[in-house]
């Protein structure tokens, strides 16, 4: 079982949470093409490595938040609130990943 750190409640067991998929996906406006809309709905990075993803503390404070998790090892790198920038954003650009 994963130990997940809710930014509001602290570390809690995985079974208190529900998974929300990849984070930082902007919902486009209604004016976009069908291709762009399909990409918003269905296309994901499927990252091998550090992925920014959403979690919801469903059996707890009820809040959504984001986490960085290495999909190869399940190791969490960071937990951060909705609306905050991805904590490793600059490093990620530097790596050219």
């Amino acid at each position, binding site marked *: *079982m994963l130990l997940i750190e809710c930014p*509001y*409640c602290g570390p*809690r*067991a995985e*079974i*208190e949470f529900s998974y929300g998929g990849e984070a930082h996906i902007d919902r486009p406006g209604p004016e976009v093409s069908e291709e762009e809309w399909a990409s918003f709905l269905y296309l994901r990075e499927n990252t091998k490595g550090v992925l920014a993803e959403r979690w919801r503390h469903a*059996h*707890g*404070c*009820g*809040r959504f938040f984001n986490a960085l998790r290495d999909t190869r090892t399940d190791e969490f790198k960071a937990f951060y609130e909705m609306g905050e920038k991805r904590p490793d954003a600059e490093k990620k650009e530097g790596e050219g990943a």
Partner: protein
Amino acid sequence: MVEITEGCVLSRLPASTRLILQGRQPALQAACGALGVETVPEMLCTAEGAGGHALRVGPFELALQPTGDGLAPLEAALASVPHSLVEVSNRNVSYTLQGWQAADILAALCPLDFSLAAFPVGMATRSILDKAGALIWRTADQTFHIEVWRSFAPYVEGQLHEVAKSISYNILTVQH
């Protein structure tokens, strides 16, 4: 009131008023004021005022248990502040679980650490009891106030009884 095992009594509590308030700090502050609670409790903490209890179960959320005057003072205090106040009195069923085995019994159904250091008196949080969501509030060293949704109550009660039956054979205990 049922002694579910030696050193643990489960009591189903009578009907009471419960509300969930969602809002930002000014709303939480106004509601606390109406209950006679001076400052909004920190996350997972509780506070008692002349008008009832406030449980901080979320960053923008209080579970309120007013006594006496009911809803009117709360509604008056919140009238000018953006908020959502929902009465959940009928949704929930409350219990107290009391006795020296209470923490061990909860620990068998819930992944939280119920040692006094990790879950001190006055702490309240939502979590799960086996498969059902529950609000767990430690009101004394060996006393927990538990709330579950009404339709889950027979299940949770049953699970508490099951654990209590076997816990006398369990060599693991929560460190106090």
